[in-house]
């Protein structure tokens, strides 16, 4: 593969990584930092990638491991940052998001991290179940139950947030 083709492919993967980083960190700046740090690690560990193997899964594994070690470090320091919700993060750049979209992002941000990871990797990145389980380093059964629990929680939360249908009363004037 030529360098240009790789740049093209990486550009797409970076969009995926950024989405996943947002879900992990719930903060735009932290997410971008995580993406950049993951890319730096990938550059340093380029020998561990085998040509022809799945580049995206390799990058996701790097990011996931990095995130885990970052979280550990923060916890040791006792300064676990309470990130803003991804719904908040969504606000300034795009006021155009539909209300349902905002709701689902807010609901996602409230889920336990393990469920957020499972939902995002599978539903958003369209990874195969095996790949996602490998990235998260958990058995398939665990992945499936996290996915199921997360989606169910999200669904119920969405149900609760459903805004009543707007009822327009024709003005008499």
């Amino acid at each position: 593969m030529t360098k240009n083709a790789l740049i093209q492919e990486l550009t797409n993967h970076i969009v995926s990584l950024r989405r996943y980083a947002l879900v992990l960190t719930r903060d735009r700046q932290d997410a971008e930092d995580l993406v950049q740090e993951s890319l730096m690690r990938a550059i340093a560990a380029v020998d561990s990638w085998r040509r022809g193997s799945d580049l995206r899964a390799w990058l996701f594994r790097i990011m996931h491991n990095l995130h885990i070690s970052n979280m550990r470090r923060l916890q040791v320091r006792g300064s676990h940052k309470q990130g803003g919700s991804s719904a908040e993060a969504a606000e300034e750049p795009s006021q155009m998001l539909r209300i349902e979209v905002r709701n689902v992002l807010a609901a996602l941000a409230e889920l336990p991290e393990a469920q957020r990871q499972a939902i995002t990797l599978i539903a958003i990145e369209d990874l195969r179940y095996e790949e996602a389980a490998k990235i998260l380093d958990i058995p398939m059964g665990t992945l499936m139950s996290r996915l199921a629990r997360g989606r169910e929680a999200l669904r119920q939360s969405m149900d609760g947030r459903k805004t009543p249908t707007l009822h327009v009363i024709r003005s008499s004037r």
Partner: protein
Amino acid sequence: MTHKIEESDLHAFVDDRLDDARAEAVMTYLEANPQEMTRVREFMEQKQLLLEGLDAIAATAANSYTDQLRDRLAGKLAGRPSFVWLRTAAAVALLIGSGWLAHMMYQTHVEEEIPNLVEDAAQVHQIFAADQNRAVEIPGSDRNELVTSFAVHLGEPVSLPDLSPIGLALVGGRLLGTEEGPLAQLIYEDGSGRRLTLCMAVQDTEAGTEVHLVEVDGLNAGYWQNGDLTYAVVAETAPEQLLSIVAEISEQKPSGHL
């Protein structure tokens, strides 16, 4: 109705990860259970909304330093050495987890006597396969003729493995006579014309169903037995590559157990 529909089936249905039969079963189940139907619809809707939302956030986040890192990584990746068969690396990675590969790797370290069949296979590979311009006796396009003539001469039913999933096309085959009886040779080719030989013969090699990896005349070869047939694969490639090829072949034989 085969199995009960599990919660995980519903999610696999949402993610479009079920085969047709299972998807059909889930559909039947949902039609009979309107509440479940609603739930699955909501899962699908939820997935769509999440995608929309996270896409919108991620797409707006252009960052020039990230782009710089991307370009550096692309440069590094482009410099990685090429493999003979690109898609096989992923196949090997999958096998590693199964413990099956570890078992086979172990076999490679055991000193063993190389059966005649494997030496013959290496020889016919060098004569008939290594040279791209040499014509095959029966072209790969004539699968029926290959299957019939191999079966008649070997006295055993023969199936032609499809290696297209790992990027190898069937060029064709030929029948050869050896001191130990007839030998059927199939030749496969990768995108850049590099070739692989798969030999089949009815020979008492006592190979067993496990795959043995050996080196013959500087070529890597793998051999194993399945029923009355012994198989030998020969190619100028790394042992890992060979393993993934063997895996592809053996997976396609319903009676194959490695």
